[in-house]
């Protein structure tokens, strides 16, 4: 699968984009967050406050319970703040 990180999630993980094998036992966005959190300090900090994390699966906004599968493009980012004026 392809994982993408944006804004401060990208800064904390230190990664913008990576190819990643779907880990065993990961079926949902929430499972994936839980898994990524265990990948080291940067990931732990990026995903510390799940209330501030939003996700998209295949470029559609997704919630914690939505399914993820091998081959999906999954993105993690903060709440959107564009166009503010």
């Amino acid at each position, binding site marked *: 699968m392809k994982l993408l990180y*944006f804004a*401060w999630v990208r800064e904390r993980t230190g990664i913008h984009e990576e190819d990643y094998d779907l880990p065993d036992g990961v079926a949902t966005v929430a499972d994936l967050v839980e898994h990524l959190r265990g990948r080291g300090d940067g990931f732990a900090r990026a995903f510390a406050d799940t209330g501030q994390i939003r996700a*998209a699966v295949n470029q559609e*906004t997704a919630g914690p319970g939505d399914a993820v599968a091998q081959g999906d493009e999954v993105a993690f*980012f*903060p709440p959107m703040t*564009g*166009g503010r*004026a």
Partner: protein
Amino acid sequence: MSVSVQRGDFDPGRELESLLEGRRDIGGVVSFVGLVRDFSEGSGVGALTLEHYPGMTEKALEKIEREAHDRFDIDATRIVHRHGRMEPGERIVLVIAASSHRGEAFRACEFLIDWLKTKAPFWKSEETPEGARWVEARGSDENATRRWDDEG
């Protein structure tokens, strides 16, 4: 209906003309232009950088545009959104809604910009004297979006 996400500036007058070219059925056009301000939350802002999600951004804007056409009696719309680094006074975003009647054009334009703020994948980083900071989502923007859900 058309959407552009681009690094460079745009010309609102030219965008308006091109949207209306050859049309005889439009009675009113409402446009909104968002600009970079030199202040935010009590700090001076030297510049801002808009990060976005290429691919998803275009899809999200097209979806917002379709939603506006479903909700309002409008005949033409245009969204142009910039990304990258911009300085105060620069244009960030343009939204145009055209209709045979002005009321629908006003409402659709406001709907488009309200929804765009919370449903399009853009993130804003501001350069302030204290350093760069990510702008946090604001309750007032989400409230402005929710207002449309209530009316939905």
